[in-house]
């Protein structure tokens, strides 16, 4: 299953809930303001790192670059472009876009 999150983890709890409810082996794609959740040095880093033991985490490069944080991505997070976004959707049999 692919989970897509688009809200900053510093403003909303959607990433936290997604990480709690994503089954082992699922993929999580961070887009828009959720890409801040893929960056180092913040208060959510520990939580996201912990989740990466069971989940594959991706972040959309265009959103990282737009926000000036492309050089702060945590190790273990895979940065994808729009083509990669499409591939992720196509590879998974179902998905959830978190609101």
């Amino acid at each position: 299953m692919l989970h897509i999150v688009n809200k900053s983890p510093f403003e909303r709890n959607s990433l936290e809930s997604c990480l709690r409810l994503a089954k082992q082996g699922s993929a999580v794609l961070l887009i828009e303001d959720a890409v801040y959740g893929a960056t180092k040095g913040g208060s959510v880093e520990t939580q996201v790192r912990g989740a990466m033991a069971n989940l594959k985490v991706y972040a959309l490069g265009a959103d990282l670059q737009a926000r000036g944080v492309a050089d702060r991505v945590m190790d273990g997070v895979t940065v994808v472009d729009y083509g990669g976004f499409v591939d992720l959707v196509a590879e998974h049999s179902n998905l959830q876009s978190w609101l």
Partner: protein
Amino acid sequence: MFTSSEDMDTDEGGVVKKFMFVNRKAPYGTIYALEGLEVVLISAAFEQDVSLAFVDDGVYELKKGQDTKALGQENFSPTYRALEGYDIEKLYVERESLEARGLTEDDLLVDVQVVSSAELADLMVEQDVVISF
């Protein structure tokens, strides 16, 4: 996404998909909870395999004793009790969300299955379509 009603009338029956609606917003503060409920009712008309999950502030949608008279908005909470009449009987509430808000199953206005995060995660991956509100 939906199978047409014509297909449903054939002997073979239509394609029935598993739909889960995940409710994560409190009622009244935003329109999400009410809009989500309306989509659930629409989905019932298409005879799909529908379940509802209540997570985070979504559990407040099911709190007993809602009274919106002074607020001037519609109290739509009784509608959750009517879902059974539309063959929507799978209502799952995440235990962790209830406990975080100091609520128990007795505080809810409809019969639900209280499930753990892990159980809800298992239910989610089984779905064909998951829609968040």
